[in-house]
C-alpha cells in the first residue's frame, strides 16, 4: 500500500502526461502482480461496487464527534468531495473523540495495519470486511483505523472505501503506461483489457505478457475516431468547392461497428462497448461481410419514416443496461454509415475519402437486404459545386432533422483524434435566450469552492396568483465562461447572496447571460414546462439589466417553431 500511496501522491503532483506515464509504468514494473492488478483497475476508474457511502462515513464521524450537521455541510461544499472533507476534519476532531474504542475484533485489524500490509490485503480483506460489519462494529472499526493511520493516508483510505476513486488519470494514459512499461502495442493492451478483469495476479500477468503470435486482425478493438472541428469558412474559401464532400451531420451518437467472424462489436466515441443497448444493430451486423469496420451514427429512425426521430428518443435507450421489447418498438434504431475503415481485413484509413466512400457503397450493396434492411443506411452526400450552396444545404439538412452538415475533403485520409483541416462540422446556429442568474452552487474537484454551477431564469409575465412578473427557473449551465469571468462571478455571487440552502445560494436577480442551446421541447419534469439540450453560457450580458431578459413566452414561441418545422415535412 505504501508504494501505491506514493504513486498516487506523485501523480497528483505532476502535470505532464509524459511524466505520469513514466510514473505508472515504473510502478507497475516494480509492483507485485496481484497489487499491480488492483492499481490498474483503480487508476482506470473501473466501477466497483460501492463499499460504504460517503454519507455513512460522514455519519460515523458525526456520531462520534459533537460537530453540528450544518458545519459538515459547509465544509463539504467548500471542499467539494466527501472523502476529502472527512480526511481534513478527522485530525481536528480526534482529540475530542479520544480512545475508548477497544473491541477485540478491531484490534486484529489494527495490528495488521501496523505491518505495512500489501495493497491486495486492503482491497480484498480489510475494506470488504469493514463494509460488511454491523453498524456499531463498523463505526468503531472505522474510527480505530482513522486513529491508526497517518494523516496523509486518510484521504486514500476514505476514497477507496467509498469507491469513487478518480485521480485525473485518463484510461488512455494507463493503456499507454502499460504499453510503455511492458513493451507492448497499445492496440494489444486495449484488446487484452476487454477480457473480464478480476484483479488477480493471473489477470495482470496475462495483461502484460509479451506479445506471442502475430495477430491476424485487431479483433474487437476499435480504431481511434477521427473528429471534425467547427468550420471556419475563411480557412477553406480559397480551395475549390469540388474538393469537398457535403453530408448531413446527424443528431445521434457516433458509433464504430466492427464485424468479425467472432461476432459484432459496436463502440461509442467514448470507447465503450454498447452492444447491449442496441441489440438490433448487432443482429443487423450479421449481414455485413466479416472483417468490416464501419464508422457512422447510431440514431432513432423508424423503417417507414422519412427522417430520424429527435435525439430525446435515442436518449431513452442510452444508459439502459437492457432494452426491452416495448422500448425497441417505440424507439427503433438504425445505423447510418458514412465511412469504411476496414474491408476484408484490410485497413483502409490511409486511402482517400473518395475511395472509401466507393467501397462503402459496394459493401452495402452486397449486404443481405433481408437481414440488414433499413437498419443500415448509407449517409447521402454530394460533392459541393459552389460555395454559396453551403448554407442552403445546411438549412435543408436542419429541416430534415440533422444538426447541420459535415464538410469532408475528398482526398482526406481517416486520421485519429481531432486534426484540423480535413473534416469540418457546420452546425446550425444555436438558439439563444437572455436569462437571469438566480442560483449558484459550488463546483466539485478543480472547481471546488468556486461557484460554477449556475441556474438561470426567465420572466413569467403573469401568473394566476399575481400580476407581477416572476422569475421561473429555465436551465442550468456550467460552461462557457473563462477563468477570469468565473472568478469575477464567484466574487459577485458571494457579495450578492440572498439566502443559502445548503451548498446552494440564491443571488440578487441582477445579472443577465446569453444562454445558447441546441434544442427545446415541452417537458413535464421542468418547472417552466420546457427542457433544453446542451445549454451553455454564450456570453455575460453586462450591457443588460434583469428586466430586459427574455420571457417564458419567448421560449415557448421558440419551442412551437421547432415543432412546426419538423411536422411540416
Amino acid at each position, binding site marked *: 500500500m505504501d508504494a501505491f500511496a506514493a504513486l498516487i501522491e506523485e501523480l497528483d503532483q505532476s502535470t505532464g502526461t509524459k511524466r505520469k506515464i513514466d510514473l505508472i509504468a515504473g510502478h507497475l514494473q516494480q509492483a507485485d502482480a496481484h497489487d499491480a492488478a488492483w492499481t490498474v483497475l483503480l487508476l482506470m476508474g473501473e466501477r466497483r461496487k460501492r463499499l460504504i457511502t460517503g454519507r455513512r462515513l460522514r455519519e460515523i464521524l458525526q456520531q462520534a464527534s459533537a460537530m*453540528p450537521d450544518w458545519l459538515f455541510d459547509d465544509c463539504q461544499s*467548500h471542499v467539494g468531495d466527501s472523502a476529502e472533507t472527512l480526511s*481534513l476534519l478527522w485530525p481536528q*476532531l480526534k482529540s475530542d473523540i479520544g480512545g475508548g474504542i477497544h473491541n477485540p475484533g478491531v484490534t486484529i485489524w489494527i495490528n495488521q495495519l501496523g505491518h505495512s500490509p500489501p495493497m491486495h490485503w486492503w482491497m480484498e480483506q480489510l475494506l470488504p470486511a469493514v463494509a460488511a460489519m454491523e453498524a456499531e462494529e463498523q463505526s468503531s472499526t472505522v474510527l480505530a483505523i482513522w486513529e491508526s493511520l497517518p494523516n496523509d493516508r486518510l484521504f486514500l483510505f476514505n476514497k477507496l472505501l467509498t469507491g469513487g476513486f478518480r485521480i*485525473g488519470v485518463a484510461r488512455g494514459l494507463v493503456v499507454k503506461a502499460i504499453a510503455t512499461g511492458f513493451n507492448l502495442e497499445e492496440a494489444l493492451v486495449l484488446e487484452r483489457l476487454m477480457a473480464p478483469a478480476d484483479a488477480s495476479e493471473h489477470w495482470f500477468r496475462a495483461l502484460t505478457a509479451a506479445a506471442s503470435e502475430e495477430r491476424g486482425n485487431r479483433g474487437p478493438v476499435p480504431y481511434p475516431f477521427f473528429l471534425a472541428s467547427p468550420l471556419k469558412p475563411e480557412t477553406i474559401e480559397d480551395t475549390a468547392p469540388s474538393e469537398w464532400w457535403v453530408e448531413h451531420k446527424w443528431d445521434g451518437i457516433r458509433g464504430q461497428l466492427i464485424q468479425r467472424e467472432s461476432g459484432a462489436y459496436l463502440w461509442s466515441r467514448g470507447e465503450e462497448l454498447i452492444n447491449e443497448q442496441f441489440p438490433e444493430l448487432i443482429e443487423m451486423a450479421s449481414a455485413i461481410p466479416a472483417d468490416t469496420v464501419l464508422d457512422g451514427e447510431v440514431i432513432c429512425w423508424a423503417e417507414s419514416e422519412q427522417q430520424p426521430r429527435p435525439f430525446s428518443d435515442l436518449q431513452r435507450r442510452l444508459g439502459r443496461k437492457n432494452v426491452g421489447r416495448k422500448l425497441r418498438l417505440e424507439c427503433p434504431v438504425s445505423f447510418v454509415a458514412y465511412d469504411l475503415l476496414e474491408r476484408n481485413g484490410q485497413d483502409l484509413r490511409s486511402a482517400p475519402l473518395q475511395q472509401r466512400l466507393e467501397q462503402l457503397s459496394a459493401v452495402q450493396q452486397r449486404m443481405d437486404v433481408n437481414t440488414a434492411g433499413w437498419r443500415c443506411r448509407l449517409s447521402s452526400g454530394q460533392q459541393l459545386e459552389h460555395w454559396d450552396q453551403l448554407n442552403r444545404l445546411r438549412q435543408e439538412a436542419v429541416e430534415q432533422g440533422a444538426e447541420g452538415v459535415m464538410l469532408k475533403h475528398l482526398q482526406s485520409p481517416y486520421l485519429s483524434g481531432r486534426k484540423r483541416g480535413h473534416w469540418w462540422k457546420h452546425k446550425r446556429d444555436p438558439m439563444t435566450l437572455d436569462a437571469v442568474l438566480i442560483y449558484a452552487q459550488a463546483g*466539485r474537484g478543480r472547481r*471546488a469552492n468556486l461557484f460554477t454551477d449556475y441556474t438561470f431564469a426567465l420572466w413569467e409575465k403573469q401568473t394566476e396568483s399575481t400580476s407581477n412578473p416572476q422569475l421561473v427557473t429555465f436551465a442550468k449551465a456550467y460552461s462557457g465562461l473563462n477563468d477570469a469571468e468565473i472568478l469575477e462571478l464567484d466574487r459577485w455571487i458571494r457579495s450578492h447572496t440572498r439566502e443559502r440552502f445548503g451548498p446552494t445560494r440564491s443571488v440578487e436577480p441582477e445579472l443577465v447571460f446569453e444562454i445558447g442551446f441546441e434544442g427545446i421541447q415541452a417537458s413535464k419534469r421542468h418547472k417552466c414546462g420546457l427542457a433544453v439540450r446542451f445549454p451553455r453560457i454564450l456570453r455575460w450580458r453586462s450591457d443588460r439589466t434583469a428586466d430586459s431578459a427574455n420571457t417564458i413566452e419567448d421560449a415557448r414561441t421558440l419551442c412551437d417553431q421547432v415543432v412546426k418545422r419538423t411536422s411540416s415535412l
Partner: protein
Amino acid sequence: MNVLERTDSGLYCRAADAWIDPSRPVSRALITHAHADHARPGCGEYWAVDISEGVLRQRLGRDITLHSMPYRQEFWLNQACLSFHSAGHVLGSAQIRLMVEDQVWVVTGDYKRCPDPSCEPFEVVPCDVLITEATFGLPIYAWDTGKRVATEIRDWWHADRERPSLLFCYSFGKAQRLLAELNAIGVEEEVLLHGAVETVTRHYREAGVAMTASRPVSELPRKDSLVGRLVLAPPSAHRSAWMRRFRSPQTAFASGWMAVRGARRRRGYERGFILSDHADWQGLIRTVLESGAERVYVTHGQSDVMARFLRERHGLDAKPLDQLN
C-alpha cells in the same frame, strides 16, 4: 453604545473621528497592516505601528502624514484611548484596541497564532467586543508549524537539482516568513527573489529579522540557467513573461488555500505547501475565547459559519460584521 459603526468607507470610530483600514480616502486612518486591501492611499493622516513604517511609506508614498506608534503604547484621539497590539500576521501588523468611556473594543485585523520568526507573536487583548477575521473559518483548516512546512519545502527544492524551483507566495509577509523559516532550519544557500519580493524584503532586513541570504534574480546574468536554485515570486508572476526565463521549472505555491486539493489543482501548480499567515479554525476560536469578549463580530471569508458556531457552541453574541449597526 457602539464604539464602532459601519460606513461606506469602512469601520468608523466616532469618538476618535477615525476610520480603521478605510476602503476609500478619509481624513484619518488607523492601519492594522500594510497589505493593499487594508492600507489604501489618499488619506489625510495615517496612524500605524512604527515598524510597519518602511513598507507603508513604500506602498502609500514617501510623503504621507504618518504617526507611528510602538506596540502597546496608549494614545488619545479626541474621546478615544487607542493602542496597537501585535497581530502576528506580518511585520508591523496590529490589532487595534479602542477604549471609549468604559468600553473596550478590539479589531484584530488579519492575524495568526502560529509562531513566525519574521514578526512578533500575537498578543491576547482582553475586550468587551471583538471584531475578528475568519478567512479560514472552517474546521478543515488546521496548520502545521512553519518549521515543518519549511522542511518540506527544502526537501522539495533539494530533491530536484536539475531544474530551477519556483515557489510562488505573497510578496509581503509570506515570502519573508519563508526566508526566516528556512534560516531557522539551517538553510544557508542563497535564495533568489522576484523584484516585488525584493523590495519588501529590504525592510525586513532593516528591521533586523534573521533570514536566509537572498538576492534579486535580476542581478544574475541573463544566461545563468538558474538550475537548482530556489526562487520566490508572487502568484501574479505565474505563467507571465517573467517566468519564461526559467526553462521547465518545478513550481509550487505556498498558501493556506493549498489545504484543499481542488483549489490547488485549479491553480495549476505542481505542489502546494500549506502555509498561512491567517489563523486556522482552532486559532480563531481560541482567540475569541481568550479575549473574553461577550459580543463578537466576524468579517472576511467564513463570517456566517464562525458566527453561528460561536453562538451555538459557546453561547456568545456573535454576528457577521455586516449586521453591526
